[in-house]
């Protein structure tokens, strides 16, 4: 599904190489986790894949179901089925959460040549999916993420994911700032979407999220490269010994 080959990325504004040859393939229906120390390039990878400005791809490719996503606008990537759950969801005063969700769902449908969803069907769907994430009517009415707690923001990300039904989901440190209960809710939301051949790339510092979202494959990223790939046991190893040993291994 998501295929990244030899991806090299530098900052547009300065001559600083962040990703130095990332190779990664997420198959349909699989959950891949990326772990790694601060500054290893994990978030950059998520931003480059979703199309944020300020990065320049100097080498390599990234495709989603064979389509080159690096050439696409952010909204085209979204319509193609890519979704990024932000590490820091953005507050947008003046834009109602519900309006935002409906506009997003319909924009993607339109881009894919599908009919817009009717207002009543949409409302039913939102209520149902919001309820399972314990998002109440008030949160849906408020402006996007404004005045939301850290946990509410992350749950709101998962609600967007549930409404947009992407093929490939990237979760950028979705566990940061979450207490245990909120993490379980988020994990529950992700697990509910795990079927139907969706791919997941879960970026995290800590193993604890992976207790709730069981990965198929774990990658360790350091200094702009994936230095080690293995099964879920790799995450436990990191938790016990930190990253230093692995970095020493490849050095």
């Amino acid at each position, binding site marked *: 599904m998501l295929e990244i080959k030899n991806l090299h990325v530098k900052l547009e504004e300065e001559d600083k190489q962040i990703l130095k040859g990332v190779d990664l393939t997420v198959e349909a229906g699989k959950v891949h986790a990326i772990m790694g120390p601060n500054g290893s390039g994990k978030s950059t990878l998520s931003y480059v894949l979703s199309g944020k400005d300020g990065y320049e791809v100097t080498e390599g490719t990234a495709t989603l179901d064979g389509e080159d996503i690096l050439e696409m606008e952010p909204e085209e990537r979204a319509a193609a089925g890519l979704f990024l759950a932000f590490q820091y969801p953005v507050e947008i005063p003046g*834009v109602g959460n519900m309006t935002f969700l409906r506009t997003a769902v319909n924009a993607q449908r339109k881009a894919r040549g599908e009919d817009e969803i009717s207002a009543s069907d949409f409302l039913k769907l939102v209520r149902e999916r919001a309820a399972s994430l314990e998002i109440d009517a008030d949160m849906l009415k408020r402006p996007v993420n404004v005045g939301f707690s850290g946990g509410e923001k992350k749950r709101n990300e998962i609600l967007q994911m549930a409404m947009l039904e992407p093929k490939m989901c990237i979760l950028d440190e979705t566990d940061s700032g979450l207490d245990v209960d909120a993490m379980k809710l988020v994990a529950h939301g992700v697990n509910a979407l795990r079927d139907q051949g969706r791919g997941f790339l879960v970026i995290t510092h800590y193993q604890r999220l992976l207790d709730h979202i069981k990965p198929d494959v774990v990658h360790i990223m350091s200094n702009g490269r994936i230095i080690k790939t293995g099964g879920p046991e790799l995450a436990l190893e990191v938790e016990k010994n930190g990253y230093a040993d692995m970095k020493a291994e490849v050095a």
Partner: protein
Amino acid sequence: MALPQVKQTATEARLAAMTRPDGAKWITEIREAALARVSDMGLPGARDEYWKYTRPETLVQPEAPQAATFDDDDEQLFHEFDRLKVVFVDGVFSAEDSDDLTLEGIEISRLADVATQDIHWAKDLYGTLETNGQTPVQRPLAALNTAYAADGIVIRVTGAPSKPVNLIYEHRATGSDVLLHHVIKVEEGAEFTLLENGPAAARLNKVLEVDIADTGKFHHIRAQGRDHERRAATHIFARLGRESAFKSFTMTANGALTRNECVIELTGDDAIAHVAGACVGDGDFVHDDTVFITHDAENCESRQVFKKVLRNGAVGVFQGKILVKAGAQKTDGYQISQSLLLDGDSQFLAKPELEIYADDVACSHGSTSGAIDETALFYLRSRGLPHGIATDLLTLAFLAEAVQEIEDQDLQAEINTRIERWLERRRG
């Protein structure tokens, strides 16, 4: 003091081109006094401090610049609302297009009729608030209006009429040079909503005087546009009694030059004055909001919220002042003016002013200029919203604070829809 020669010449040229309407003795006296004020002050010139950001020449010159009439493909604003329509065509009241002017709780007359009557309550109000509003800052175009306006609407509100009065302006002649003068008296405890919309003329000079007695309430929602070539100078003069409320909102779309002045005097304790504006300009567009609020009583609240969206070289101006007189304790004054510049060609010029002579007051003011928030834009796009739709959504969000000043939710939605369509048209 003699006027500078340039000003003297310009003023004389304009006055020579005008004809004073006939009327009863009382209004003739008022008009003569107003004419004397104009001659004393002279009409605005490019060197006047109060006209530093907006060039007044086209508003002053003897002939109105030609302006193409605007063929609106949209439904008339407020058409779904139950309202009493009062229509002016190129500044002349049209009985044929208007509704019957009878409505319970309100007396509505035409200025042209009132002016011929020997005695009328309007004699104590017509030109009075305009005259008061000449100090400390001169507003010669308003005095010119009092001297020469032949038509307008004269309203006395005694109760709570079941529906708003909607003044609808139609522009049919490309060279129409229009003066309109409205007078509204809201009696004690009465409540009234005034709606205004439609392109009025090639050049419009309009004055609205509103006198609100104790505990009276006045709501005003005005839409200017979408005609592109109009020039307009409008003045609102409001005087507020004890525990009264004045709430005015203006939406402006397009227009070569629009200067909206709002002069409010809070004269009774515990009164509230809110004035807000949302404007959208694209290209050949100059929009100026000039507001002057005087607190002359205790425990009053005033609020100014002005938002401007500018693109393709459009220019926005804001001059807003809060004057708190000695003795106006417990004043709560708030003022915000902001612009969203959608490109590097547009500009916003703001002059916020506070002048406070009381020691127990809370006054705040702020002014900002900014571009679209790139982080928010990326967030929206990453959810599949195309660049244009995402930008429009953020633009509407920017204007929301001003539009939300409209109390009535339905009217708020009506205005929002119009702004949305304006943005949509530009998205193509």
